């Protein structure tokens, strides 16, 4: 072995840093589906306000999506930007504030306790501000991949605005501060889901999905065009919400649809030129997620124009959150987690582990079927206002989340086994 590591300050984080974020995201997913299942209020009747459905929604958006996005970007962004994370201690501190804060926030929301929500929101706000600083520092010194850096900057700007609006909404609930709640909530939704989470997802897609598939990355120009179109659509949506112009909001959704379609076509073209024929089962989830993204934007335009029923608002939420963002995240995480585990399984005289030996494939297969069934049941259940079908969807979603938890734990156990000096991972001839 060549001793290179002495004094290294590398882009490769200690494995505990990203994995603690992923572990929390996996646990929050179980919590979110469980709260949805336990809610007495039918999902299709949900409009707004505190309660278990609201808590389940934020357990997914903040607990699963934002937490995993922080963990993934802390590890993957330095690879793209050629810059190490500025402070590992800050990355750990952010976790210790974010996860208990979100537990408090979702617990407070589920129990109609705004004062608990406010305390949780404050901790989560500080955590996300620390993450925002780490992201800012990383992007500031970044080199290479200008389009992905630009996605990072745009996502960071959306995070800052979404946080500000989120704090205003919590203040409204706790202190009764007067504001146009529906407008603030709509702008918060656009900035958090399509802005921060969506732009991070699209930016990383341009880099990670071709890498997973061993395909050429899309051109910087194509990625930049998609980003500009996305940012214009988001800005237009915010302007439409501020002005109360539904026609403009519908136009923004249509522009977002065009931008998303352009992105999907760009990545699909790239994947067609891949060097290895099998894409892997995660890409089925990626494609379902893309379909949900496009459907959410089409339905968003219809809602803004007033040609969709009021119930379609919930369907929009289902397509956007579990459909697009959660499905995409689960697809990407099932590739990243075993990959990172294999990277960290080697060293100290051990041969590096193979990704396949770190991946409990049957558990992932079971999860995929369960997650897609849950999604289908939710979509059909909400569209047809069928309470039993949406509850069935929540129950299957809970089973899927538990299966994903089993996958994650299995990878961690395999990593621990490898680090404790498991048997050599190279086949030896017996002849």
């Amino acid at each position, binding site marked *: 072995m060549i001793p290179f590591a002495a004094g290294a300050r590398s882009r490769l984080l200690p494995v505990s840093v990203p994995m603690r974020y992923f572990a929390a995201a996996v646990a929050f997913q179980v919590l979110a589906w469980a709260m949805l299942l336990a809610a007495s209020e039918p999902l299709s009747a949900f409009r707004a306000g505190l309660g278990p459905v609201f808590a389940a929604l934020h357990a997914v958006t903040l607990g699963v999506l934002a937490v995993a996005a922080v963990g993934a970007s802390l590890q993957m962004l330095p*690879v793209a930007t050629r810059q190490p994370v500025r402070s590992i201690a800050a990355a750990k501190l952010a976790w210790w504030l974010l996860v208990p804060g979100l537990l408090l926030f979702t617990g407070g929301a589920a129990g109609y306790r705004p004062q608990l929500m406010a305390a949780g929101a404050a901790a989560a706000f500080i955590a996300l501000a620390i993450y925002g600083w780490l992201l800012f520092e990383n992007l500031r010194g970044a080199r290479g991949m200008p389009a992905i850096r630009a996605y990072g900057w745009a996502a960071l700007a959306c995070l800052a605005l979404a946080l500000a609006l989120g704090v205003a909404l919590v203040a409204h609930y706790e202190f009764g501060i007067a504001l146009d709640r529906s407008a603030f909530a709509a702008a918060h939704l656009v900035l958090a889901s399509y802005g921060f989470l969506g732009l991070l997802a699209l930016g990383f897609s341009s880099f990670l999905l071709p890498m997973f598939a061993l395909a050429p990355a899309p051109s910087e120009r194509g990625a930049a065009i998609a980003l500009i179109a996305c940012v214009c659509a988001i800005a237009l949506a915010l302007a439409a919400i501020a002005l109360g112009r539904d026609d403009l909001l519908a136009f923004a959704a249509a522009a977002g649809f065009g931008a998303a379609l352009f992105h999907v076509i760009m990545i699909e073209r790239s994947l067609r030129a891949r060097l290895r024929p099998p894409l892997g089962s995660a890409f089925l989830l990626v494609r379902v997620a893309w379909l949900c993204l496009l459907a959410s934007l089409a339905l968003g335009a219809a809602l803004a124009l007033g040609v969709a029923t009021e119930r379609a608002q919930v369907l929009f939420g289902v397509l956007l959150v579990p459909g697009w963002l959660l499905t995409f995240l689960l697809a990407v995480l099932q590739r990243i987690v075993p990959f990172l585990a294999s990277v960290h399984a080697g060293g100290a005289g051990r041969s590096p582990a193979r990704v396949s030996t770190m991946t409990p494939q049957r558990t992932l297969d079971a999860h995929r079927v369960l997650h897609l069934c849950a999604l289908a049941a939710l979509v059909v259940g909400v569209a047809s206002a069928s309470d039993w079908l949406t509850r069935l969807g929540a129950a299957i979603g809970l089973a899927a989340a538990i299966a994903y938890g089993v996958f994650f734990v299995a990878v961690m156990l395999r990593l621990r086994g490898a680090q404790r000096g498991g048997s050599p991972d190279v086949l030896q001839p017996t002849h």
Partner: protein
Amino acid sequence: MFFNRHTSLRLHEEHLATVQLWSRLEQVIVTRVPEAELLDTLRRCAAALDDEIERHFHFEERELFPRLAEAGEGDIAELLAEEHETIRTAAQALRELLRLGQPDAAAMQQMRALGLELAERLVAHVQKEEMALLPALEDLLDEETDRELSLAYAAS
């Protein structure tokens, strides 16, 4: 990924060739082609791997990993070097099996398993170098060093 350095480009082209060759072997193994075709593909892959170990791996270990380590990326360099060692061990095992004149069913089974293992290890190794090593070279090598290294590599 787009590379401006000759050294990165050259290594990138070799990575593409490696992935294509070993993906072809995976297909050959999975589709259960006749034994003679499998052995022929395995021998071609083993020969290509010998060349890769001799030139590509040595070049990276001699010229690039120390530069990566100096730039503070020592753990990535160490990880890649460890993977080289593991691939060397597996390649040696494959060579020994291929030396058998008339391999029996058990030897063929071992060769299939080794072929799949090497394919996975090489592809994963290429992915890591494409993500971590080659982009870093864009920063680490100035134009003159890049020219010298790429000429030295071409002559090796």
